[in-house]
């Protein structure tokens, strides 16, 4: 409300700037050009006289200069009478007033409504930090935790809370640092170690580096069954070119994986990549049990074809219901595994469009895109 009052007052001021001088009524004659010229010439004459009095210029020089100025004065005087009077002023002024009254609000208002965001309040940083946490403002939540951690650098819980958020919005350096701090302060656990490993991996663009690998190994030391750590260790083996070892790790993991675990699809893809098969129990989500069974009895080419079909089904589903972030990520990975970088890229692009406002989702998409080497 206050904003609109301010806008109105400003508009009024602009209009008044036009109306005020018009109020002076009828024919005030403008100071003529010749009048102003004459004044300057008189001043020049006075200056010459001063210079002569102080001896700055000689008599002859001064006389010549005087004559020249005098000629200009004569010319200017001749022009004085020629500047005609004004007529028809009132109609013109009314027209100008009307233009100002209508044009200014119309132009300014219209342009502003097109360009401006009047309903969006200012967001000074200090205020945002003080105000009640708004759960949708992830950035500010992070800032608050950071401020808190600056004051209490030994609060391990704080690091543990903020680390996955960092990872989700793509700040992997910070995520890795936060996980490392959490481990230092709270001791190792499977979740923390895998978190650290994942962050390090994302930082390295999807490569399971030595540091990431030892983090995953530490996670297994804390919990030998941790599925994430096992999956990534498999990935490490694959990236090192030890496909057989990768297949062994993943097969063992798949055997331990409940049928409805969301990462079964991922695991299936991974196994397909190293040429191994997905052992039972079959998954409920991801490839259907029947599909997997069918896949086992096919030639490699046919299998490839079938997997493509599955991926295309997923794609069709996502085209209708786009809010499934995990689905999108799976799609990106699947296309990439099938060696179709262009499709993977377009999936990433569509996913970004769907989650345009959602920083967390975008972070995950970007992270995966980076991991898969899709560029951005």
């Amino acid at each position, binding site marked *: 409300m206050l904003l609109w009052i301010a806008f109105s007052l400003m508009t009024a001021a602009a209009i008044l700037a036009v109306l005020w001088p*018009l109020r002076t009524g009828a024919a005030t004659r403008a100071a003529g050009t010749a*009048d102003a010229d004459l004044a300057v010439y008189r001043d020049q004459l006075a200056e010459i006289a001063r210079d002569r009095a102080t001896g700055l210029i000689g008599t002859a020089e001064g006389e010549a*200069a005087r004559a020249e100025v005098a000629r200009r004065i004569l010319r200017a005087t001749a022009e004085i009478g020629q500047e005609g009077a004004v007529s028809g002023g009132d109609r013109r002024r009314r027209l100008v007033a009307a233009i100002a009254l209508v044009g200014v609000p119309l132009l300014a208002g219209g*342009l502003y409504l097109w360009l401006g965001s009047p309903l969006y309040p200012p967001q000074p*940083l*200090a205020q945002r930090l003080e105000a009640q946490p708004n759960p949708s*403002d992830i950035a500010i939540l992070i800032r608050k935790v950071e401020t808190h951690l600056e004051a209490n650098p030994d609060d391990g819980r704080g690091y543990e809370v903020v680390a996955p958020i960092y990872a989700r919005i793509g700040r992997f350096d910070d995520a890795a640092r936060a996980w490392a701090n959490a481990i230092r302060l709270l001791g190792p656990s499977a979740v923390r170690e895998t978190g650290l490993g994942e962050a390090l991996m994302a930082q390295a663009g999807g490569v399971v580096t030595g540091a990431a690998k030892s983090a995953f190994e530490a996670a297994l030391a804390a919990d030998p069954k941790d599925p994430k750590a096992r999956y990534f260790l498999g990935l490490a083996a694959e990236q090192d070119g030890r496909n057989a070892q990768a297949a062994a790790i993943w097969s063992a993991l798949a055997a331990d994986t409940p049928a409805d675990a969301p990462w079964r699809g991922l695991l299936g893809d991974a196994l397909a990549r190293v040429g191994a098969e997905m052992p039972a129990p079959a998954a409920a989500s991801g490839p259907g049990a029947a599909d997997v069974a069918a896949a086992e009895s096919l030639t490699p080419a046919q299998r490839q074809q079938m997997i493509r079909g599955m991926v295309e089904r997923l794609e069709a589903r996502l085209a209708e219901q786009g809010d499934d972030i995990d689905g999108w990520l799976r799609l990106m990975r699947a296309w990439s595994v099938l060696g179709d970088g262009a499709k993977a890229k377009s999936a990433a692009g569509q996913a970004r469009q769907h989650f345009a406002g959602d920083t967390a989702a975008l972070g995950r998409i970007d992270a995966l895109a980076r991991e898969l080497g899709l560029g951005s």
Partner: protein
Amino acid sequence: MNPEIGHYALVLSLAVAILMTVIPIWGARAGDAALMKVGTTLALVLAGFVGLSFATLVVAYVQSDFSVLNVVENSHSAKPLLYRITGTWGNHEGSMLLWVLVLAIFAALVALFGNNLPARLKANVLGVQGSVATAFLLFILLTSNPFTRVIPPPAEGQDLNPILQDIGLAIHPPLLYLGYVGFSITFAFAVAALIEGRIDATWARWVRPWALTAWAFLTLGIAMGSYWAYYELGWGGWWFWDPVENASLMPWFAGTALIHSAVVMEKRDALKVWTVLLAILAFSLSLLGTFLVRSGVLTSVHAFATDPSRGVFILAILVFFIGGSLALYALRAPMLRQGGLFAPVSREGALVLNNLLLTAAAAAVLVGTLYPLALEALDGSKITVGPPYFNLTVGALMLPVAFAMPFGPLLAWKRGDLIGASQRLMAAFGAGIVIAALAAYAQGGGPVLAPFGMGLAAFVVIGAVAEVIERAGFGRVPRATAFARLRGLPRAVFGGALAHAGVGVCLFGIIAETSWNAERIAGVKVGGSFEVGGYELTLDRLEPRNGPNYRDLVGVFSVRRGGVEHGTIESAKRLFTARNMPTTESGIRTMGFSQLYVSLGDELPGGGVGVRAYWKPFVTLIWIGSIIMALGGALSLSDRRLRVGAPKPAKKPKVKPDPASPVPAE
């Protein structure tokens, strides 16, 4: 403060600027005083709104309001307050807003202090100024809106380019803009006069103060920019012939020519056609500079904004104003009455020479700047026109200017006595020869041109003093009379002489630095030392230090000459953590007018660090000379003759009658 207030103020400014373009010019054509006066109030209101808009943006920066995209992209909450404020114009959008603000302020100044102007001229001037404001406000609103918002707001900004995070750069654009945009007023005067179809000696008198103001600011702005590049870029150079520097130098040459030819026009009613052209050119070159910088057509160290749609928009503005004004000029100039006559050897003749050389220099810089562009457009080959070209052409054109400079003021109007003037410059000439001889002795061999140039510089400085002494009549009239006359001399005389002396000082610095500087590049370990320009520098220690948003690696050098301690120099390699961007913080130690300059390179594998050190004799004179020039301009500006003009136009009878009227107000 709500950014939306600023946004609305900006939109409203556009509406006001459009009215300001139309109403006063219409009033002037119809001879309607009330309509013409609308221009005055609108100019004030425009400055108010643009000012409000700019202030809102500054507040958004100070408060780190990250709901404003411009703040997100160019600020950071960890930045010191000062740089948060200066960050407002350290980016494209903000700097364009500043540009328009300066434009509006100049228009408001004309509105406020232009009461002595003929009403019609004033109305036309404000109208033209309004049209320029309209074009640039449209540009800002449509292509570079600083008030674009982001939802949701991020929690942290993306920092300012650290190289721009510097006090020199913080003040340099506003100064430069005061100069650039100041010429919009002379442009407006020229176009207004052409619209009216009459230009008299008085026109020059109205224009001179504005031209002088713009020129003085531009001089300061260029000097400031040069000093910034000198100490911030870490290459020890103070002028790179970078397109952006050229863009500011061209209007400076044209503006310098303008303030001189305006004198001829005012005193002698001559060179009118030429002066008007210069007024148009000075601003056209400013616009061209804006285009070159903002469109990103040229690769340059300043290229912090490149966007083709912006480039096209500015190009359209450029074509409209330059093309339009030149067309108007072509149409109207032949109708202007010819003015007074003069002999080639005369004050006028000297000023014509100055004008020719200065505009030729501006043209040479223009050719050098645009030639690579033209060639690339024609056959796609990529070339660079480097410093040698500019040094050769501008140098060759400026040396005669410097040599003729002391003669000009000593020649009489209309018909001068060259021999007489030379006799009166004997002392200055002698001083020049002595300095040249001393310089030759001091350098003992080396470049021949150096002593010659220094002698010339001394000749210019002493010649400026000689002019004042001569004017006062020392040696010809009794001393008491001479002192009285000295006091009676108009300030413009002192101002002119001061500015000329500044040129000499600057020239001395340039020549001494370029011919005598010493450079040393070395790898140094802690405890090691090297020699440059007769000084021995020892690297005492290398230490890390932490700043608010950067980390420094500082090298501390102790300076000795002939075993005598001369203090220490600290030079740093700075890493801005937010962008992981390193910069060089050169260490500079000033000794007299000379400087020792040390910058750090990379750390070397075997320990130690690469160091580049320079001995820069008399380098500070370059900037001191520029400041003296600007001061000369300011002194001239304070001359009452430039402020006086006509009495205020008679308003209503009840207003207190001016007793002096119609005698010159003073």
